[in-house]
């Protein structure tokens, strides 16, 4: 089962966890990305490409489900303005065994960094700038072949 949501509202972890655990699959791995406030960022805004984003995330989830025989892959991504501490992205993978769930979770977060059309703009006080793509993200995505 695949669950992909792109939303402007806060990510509800309790609800997402309940969905992930409902699969009776033994192992649930999750990754949550939060807006960091430790480098002076006061606001993070995410723009996306409606339609294309969901298609890209669904394709990544389908690849993960097939490659690791997952019971479930879920990606919930927030867009719009956020503040430090807000959840930006939540990934959950459910499988019979832990290795599959953990690897697939790492795969999804690495690949969605470079393979889904999201753009981040950081605001520090009065100064706003678009975040540059990082080579380390390309390298992380590339290791999955």
């Amino acid at each position, binding site marked *: 089962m695949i669950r992909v949501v792109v939303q402007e509202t806060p990510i509800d972890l309790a609800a997402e966890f309940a969905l992930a655990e409902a699969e009776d699959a033994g192992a649930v791995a999750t990754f949550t*990305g939060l807006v960091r406030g430790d480098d002076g960022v006061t606001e993070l805004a*995410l*723009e*996306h*490409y409606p*339609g*294309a984003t969901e*298609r*890209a995330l669904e394709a990544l989830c389908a690849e993960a489900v097939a490659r690791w025989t997952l019971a479930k892959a879920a990606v919930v*991504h927030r867009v719009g303005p956020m503040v430090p501490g807000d959840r*930006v*992205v939540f990934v959950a993978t459910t499988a019979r065994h832990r290795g599959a769930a953990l690897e697939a979770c790492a795969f999804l*977060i690495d690949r*969605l*960094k*470079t*393979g*889904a*059309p*999201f*753009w*981040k*703009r950081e605001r520090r006080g009065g100064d706003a700038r*678009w*975040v*540059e*793509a*990082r080579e380390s*993200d390309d390298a992380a995505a590339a290791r999955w072949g």
Partner: protein
Amino acid sequence: MAIEILYFAWVREAIGQGSERVDPPADVTTVAGLVDWLALRGGGYATAFEHRERLRAAVDQAFVPLDTAIAGAREIAIFPPVTGG
């Protein structure tokens, strides 16, 4: 051949709008050609498209290299490298 063009992030900001319909001449056959043709308008277009190596594109919502042909495309998006997650 009218095509819907979408712009995102700083490409959108420089151009000043998120989408427009354009009707390029017949000798514009690739995404890169479309970018060249739009850049001729100057102003925000010239700014947005100044550094071609910083541009990425999608044709009908599929990520593609800039030398991809645009024959038959309904929707073309031009944007910076993605920075999600």
